């Protein structure tokens, strides 16, 4: 994948997402969760935990990961994979921040 061939969609400003927090973007039936980490990086994952589809957007964000609110699986924001002894992965989407605008691509990828 390279940036030239991707379709970037502007979805809002960096400040729209609370620091160490998350917001959702609806795309038809799918919900995509955008996360902002303590160091202002932004990541996008499908809002579905690989365990039992828990809404990851509602979890606690820490160290490049989010802890699912339903049963505490820890999911890496960059790769979408479950950490520790748990196994599974969630779809990730390319996302970048340019001049404070968040740009999302719907070209999802699963490990």
């Amino acid at each position, binding site marked *: 994948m390279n940036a030239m061939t991707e379709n970037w969609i502007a979805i809002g400003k960096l400040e*729209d997402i609370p620091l160490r927090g998350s917001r959702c973007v*609806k795309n038809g039936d799918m919900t995509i969760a955008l996360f902002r980490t*303590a160091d202002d990086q932004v990541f996008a994952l499908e809002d579905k935990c690989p365990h039992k589809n828990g809404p990851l957007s509602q979890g*606690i*964000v820490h160290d490049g990961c989010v802890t699912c609110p339903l049963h505490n699986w820890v999911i890496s924001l960059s790769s979408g994979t479950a950490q520790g002894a748990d196994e599974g992965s969630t779809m990730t989407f390319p996302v970048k921040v340019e001049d404070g605008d968040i740009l999302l691509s719907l070209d999802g990828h699963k490990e």
Partner: protein
Amino acid sequence: MKKKLVIIGNGMVPGRMLERLYDQAPDLYDVTIFNAEPRVNYDRIMLSPVLSGEKTYEEIIIHGDGWYIDRNITLYKGHKVTEIDRQAKTVSTNTGETVSYDKLVIATGSNPFIIPVPGHDLPGVLTYRDLDDVEAMLLAAQSRDKAVIIGGGLLGLEAAAGLKERGMDVSVVHLMPTLMERQLDEAAGHLLQRELEGRGIKIYTSSNTKQIVGDGKVEGLELEDGTIIPASLVVMAVGIRPNAQIAQEAELDVGRGIQVDGRMVTSDPDIYSLGECAEVGGQVYGIVAPLYETARIAADHLAGVPCEAFKHSETATKLKVTGIDLYSLGDFGQGDDREEIVLRDAQAGIYKRLVIQDNKIIGVVLYGDTSDGAWFNNLLKTGEDISEMRETLIFGQAYQGGTPLDPSAAVAALPDDAEICGCNGVCKSTIVDTIKEKGLTTLDDVRAYTKASASCGTCTGLVEQLMSVTLGDSYNPAAITPMCGCTDLGHDDVRRLIKAKELKTIPDLMQALEWKTSCGCAKCRPALNYYMVCDWPNEYADDYQSRFINERVHANIQKDGTYSVVPRMWGGMTSSTELRAIADVVDKFDIPAVKCTGGQRIDMLGIKKEDLPAVWADLGKAGFVSGQAYAKGLRTVKTCVGSDWCRFGTQDSTGLGIKLEKFMWGSWTPAKLKLAVSGCPRNCAEATCKDIGVVCVDSGYEIHFAGAAGLDIKGTEILGNVSTEDEVMEHVVALAQMYREQGRYLERIYKWAKRIGVDEIRAQIMDNAEMRKAYYDRFVFSQKYAQVDPWNERVSGKDKHEFKPMADLTLEPAE
């Protein structure tokens, strides 16, 4: 087409077999399991810790429902197989299912043996085999005071210790002259008896049961010599019988158990048997180590992987009673051709005995100090000639080769294939390699990845020593348990340092206390946030991103991502206006479910997150505030009707409950805090199992605390008696504040009280008026900042972003 594998019985052994089978050949079989017990596979070995209260059932589950779902296994819980039709290759159940198989595994375990004395079928006579038995014993422990255990073997003594722990008056009746005679020699049996008697358990050895007496239910047990022991609960733990009935009916070869060859195949080549029901090489087994071996072999064979045939090996026995260390292995009978080496240390309560034949160890009994068990086991297994070290052998590994070694050096010196965890058959090199490969640093991780110390737990010490040997200084098992992986500090240190160093924000704290991660984790952040809220009520800005979702959005998340909303109904009182407002909200927002909670109020379930503010707005108009059903904070104050209505009511329990709730709502606490006020000792508000309870009496009020009725069940302790409502308020509030200041995050009040000591709490709250007043004042001060209805705040716009998606690409593709 996948082949059909059907398994009868879902115990520990077939569970282990399936793990191995899925590792070896994940796609070979469609698996169906029938289990007579209505549950998943759990660690039966750990039933005694569940009985004694050291573990919960949830903690001993081996494979949760998800495990079966992930592997597409059909698990029929609560279905008993009643017939195997070998011609048609089907099995049928008592619920009318018939399923066909290509390969069948019979793993029906054992049945506890019931001695057929008169009275054996009276209500109140139990066996000890599964969770139902434990639950029945716990129920009996609540309401009954005396229990007799028949059988002084491993199971019987674990049951006795567990029931004693639960507050029963326990006797053990044992047929033989010494306890656990199959595993222990006489001397060790006596030491064990002394220890148990010291704990208040009565022991009758050389005693045979004549009958169980009682009219309609158990009332006692009569011995052959005429002695009558009063009892309202009798537990028979006299042995087990392989459960081979269905195999017998299907005309498979059955001896003591279902006979199998070294590959676990029965007399029918398509039927396997393993676990306690199987007889292999003329032996049946009743502990998991050899049984897991049968599981491994059957799995390999089913997967078509070459493997060796089953070989008998000696396995060690340990008793899982906290504070009693005993270990026995092999053959320790006496004989002309045998010699023994014995070591006794009366002061320390230690007894060790080795039985030697032809310069080899053939039996080991250790009591009081079992740390060399693994080493002796290894010598026994390898058949090493011990003549060189005969003089020092009994002192253990540390004394071999001159200077005594420290214990971890002894562990370091164990050979790579030394077995560390007997239950799960994990050897030293597996543990060390996994620690290195996966970079494991905690005991929990090692358990998750290697299974070592994950069953009965008696090898935990060894595993920890292996961890220190492998990880060096970075692992220190003796240290205080750290809050989480982000720090080495425990909760109490952190709380102390927050005050001492005046740390008032989470980033400040992480800097000052050298947190190892950039911004903590989901374990420490909510704890730190609570400590800050509690210690700096007027200064600290609550960090919502450090709160669990329920507390962040002030509603309870449900399994499908919707929310539930529970408004306060003060003291459980409501009115037609309130009920009408709730009914209107339910209709307007199409709320799918409405339920009366166990906390005397109404729960509306299945609300979409986007709708929450509007739901709250409508509820707010009717005067409702948040019930904080999600909070580590004050939940409900249950009340009964009291002197307002009840013919027995001694005081206005409803009024007092409402007063307490109105005074205390909004306060955050280490874990949830639930109160109740009952109008008389009939206690209809169940005040004696609450975090804090008040029981009204003629002369005033009895204040209770530290009850539990959730994961644990425990009656309250009495704090003391007071005579006016104002005094109740002051004492209850002061107690709550003391708990707020000292409790560790997620520690319920009964656990805190156990740690601090009930007497200490009484001394500070009942006897020291000055301290009580100071606690009370600090609570009142913090309430000024806490009693803000979070729903109203959000209706007025706070945290708007939480409830609205950031963008909807379906509506307006932003291109």
